[in-house]
């Protein structure tokens, strides 16, 4: 396996050091950039496998850096933010960011998030309708629309199927309410059905999870959306 390159774009040298210490080793190489401009240049030159981006950069707004990177790179972007605003998180995820970590974060949390994103980006493309997925004791046959849990078939409504399909396609990523809504109902948010999105998810959980109050497959990201556990 070749070396994994992670680019850290942050104007604070202490934070760069923290991220480097947390991620470096085990075949991971960390490169650094102190400004948004430099970050974009290094990303273009080095083609990193993952980018850790601080939003509070002095020269370019973090969102602009993200938009610029997304024009030619599909490498996962993990954002570091000092703000606790759910609106901001939603906007970032909608803009193509893969995950975010709120300051002050623990190194264990950062490592876990980065690993999850690397694993996801290296995995095979999301299963199509022909595939069948196994996750957490479930077997999901998207083509035949058959779901079984521990060998017992579970009945889903059409909306629940659409919801599950959206979750499986975005497995491992936080999907915003709006993204899920578009995937299921086929148009941008608004109106009554979106008000019931949470109700559909709660119903789906009752059919998928061993304990719906302690879900392990569909995890709530408060104020942002949901994340479906990646298969494997």
């Amino acid at each position, binding site marked *: 396996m070749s070396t994994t390159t992670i680019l850290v774009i942050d104007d604070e040298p*202490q*934070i760069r050091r923290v991220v480097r210490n947390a991620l470096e080793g085990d075949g991971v190489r960390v490169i650094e950039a102190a400004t948004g401009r430099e970050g974009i240049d290094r990303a273009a030159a080095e083609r990193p496998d993952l980018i850790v981006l601080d939003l509070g950069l002095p020269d370019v707004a973090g969102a602009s850096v993200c938009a610029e990177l997304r024009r030619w790179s599909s490498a996962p972007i993990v954002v570091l933010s*000092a703000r606790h605003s759910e609106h901001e998180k939603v906007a970032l995820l909608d803009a193509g960011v893969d995950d975010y970590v709120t300051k002050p*974060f623990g190194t264990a949390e950062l490592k876990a998030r980065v690993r999850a994103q690397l694993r996801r980006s290296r995995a095979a493309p999301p299963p199509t309708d022909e595939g069948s997925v196994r996750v957490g004791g479930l077997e999901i046959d998207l083509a035949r629309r058959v779901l079984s849990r521990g060998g017992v078939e579970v009945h889903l409504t059409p909306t629940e199927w659409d919801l599950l399909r959206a979750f499986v396609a975005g497995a491992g990523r936080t999907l915003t309410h709006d993204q899920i809504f578009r995937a299921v109902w086929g148009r941008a948010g608004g109106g009554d059905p979106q008000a019931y999105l*949470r*109700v559909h998810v709660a119903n789906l959980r009752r059919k998928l999870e061993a304990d719906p109050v302690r*879900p392990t497959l569909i995890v709530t990201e408060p104020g942002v959306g949901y994340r479906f556990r990646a298969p494997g």
Partner: protein
Amino acid sequence: MRAGAGRGRAVLGWAAWVAALAALTAAMLAVRGHLDKAHVALGYLLLVLAASTRGTRARGLATALLAFLCFNFFFVPPFGTLAIRHPLDGLVLVTFLVVAAVATQLLFRARTEAAEARSRAEEIERLSTLGAETLNAGRAEDALNAVAEVIRATLGIDACEIWLPRPGDPPLALGARAMAADVPQTARDGLAMARLAAERGDAVTEQANGTTHVAPAGGGRGEVDLPGGAGAVGVSLPLRVRGRTVGVLRIARAGGIVLTPAQRRFFAVLAYYAALGAERVRLSAEEQRAETLHEADRLKDALIASVSHDLRTPLTTIKALAHELGESGDDRAVTIEEEADRLNRFVADLLDLSRLNAGELRVSPEIVAAEDLLGAALQRVSGSVRDREIRVEMHPHEPLLLGRMDFVQALRVVVNLLENAGKYAPPGTPVDLSAAREGDRLVFRVADRGPGIPEDERERIFQPFYRRPHVEPDVGGTGLGLSISRRLAQAQGGTLAFEPRPGGGSVFVFTLPAAELEDGAGLG
């Protein structure tokens, strides 16, 4: 000098009318043989009317009397005497006199009314000009200056000052002053007089001889009674709006203040304008002060936001370094990391409290399933309440329990209650979490077997920074959690209260509006 010139003009006017009367009499005398008494009477009547129109009422009446005498003496036989031969001639004479007098009187009244109307029209014009000026004045102070200038010009006085209340000493400050161009600074101390008027609430009159009179001023918009009569060189009036003294109006004239009834009436109206102007100055100052306070509030909030933002970067470094040290086996590093977390919570709580105080916290309620909320809460406290069992009481087979809430804010309330229970309950005892529908409320209960809370503290624990006595202070709290939680609950139409737990311990009851699914809501 003005009076002298007037008298000269009057004498000249009298002489002219006497001459006109003589000329008419001489002319008619020359053709007396061809004249009837009616012609003579009409000729004199014309003259009397002309005299009344041109001159005063007295001149008209005097001309009528003189014409009557000339009529009798020269044109009523026997000529050359005031005797009357025929009684009918007497009737003609008396009729002439009465007609002349009545006509003079009527003319006079018509002229007086015309003059009155003219002066009223002027008054109205001035007031409307003043009204427009004060309304157009951009600043309240400019409007006040306009009022002072109109008062000075209208009353023909030397100076008009408007004094406004101010905090401290002296209690009054000059708000506006209008001075006639050719008048030197008035010798008298306007402030002392204005102050006296403000303190007593009465009109203060300064006499030319240096004495001062204090007398009640006419109240409100009524006629202002200028005390002291013609000898006054200065008058200070308290200005009142709705019973409150809003300033003092002072007028001064070195030669004595003499006002006609019309000027007095006008003055009363103008004084009210001045009072309104003074009130406007006060209100605009207050508005400015409120704006300044608001600005200060905004700055404070911006400061808190910026501090909390700037604190998070170093906290991240501290936490990360402590974590590294902890992995190499130093126990103290764990404490450092925990304290960094606590500091972060404290900053976040302060920020929230300032947002709640500023009314800036936005809630966006939506329909949420109780188990979604509880699941998210359990996930969030899995780190902080890890060494304690949390038992959840929910019936998975009943229909979904739904509530209308802001998910993020409701989650914070439940998380805060769970963390508190984890802190205060004795080790080894579980925390019980339940959700139930009660009437139109969705009710969450967080119960522990901790020491409970004495009755007199059950409301106080919801106050910011309240620390319970006899309870170990160092349990990692900020003293803000419950007060923020209650306000978050209230912001979305909910409540948060304490209940003692049967058998010992605490129950925190968090209610939210329950929600129903409408039929055909598309849940296919």
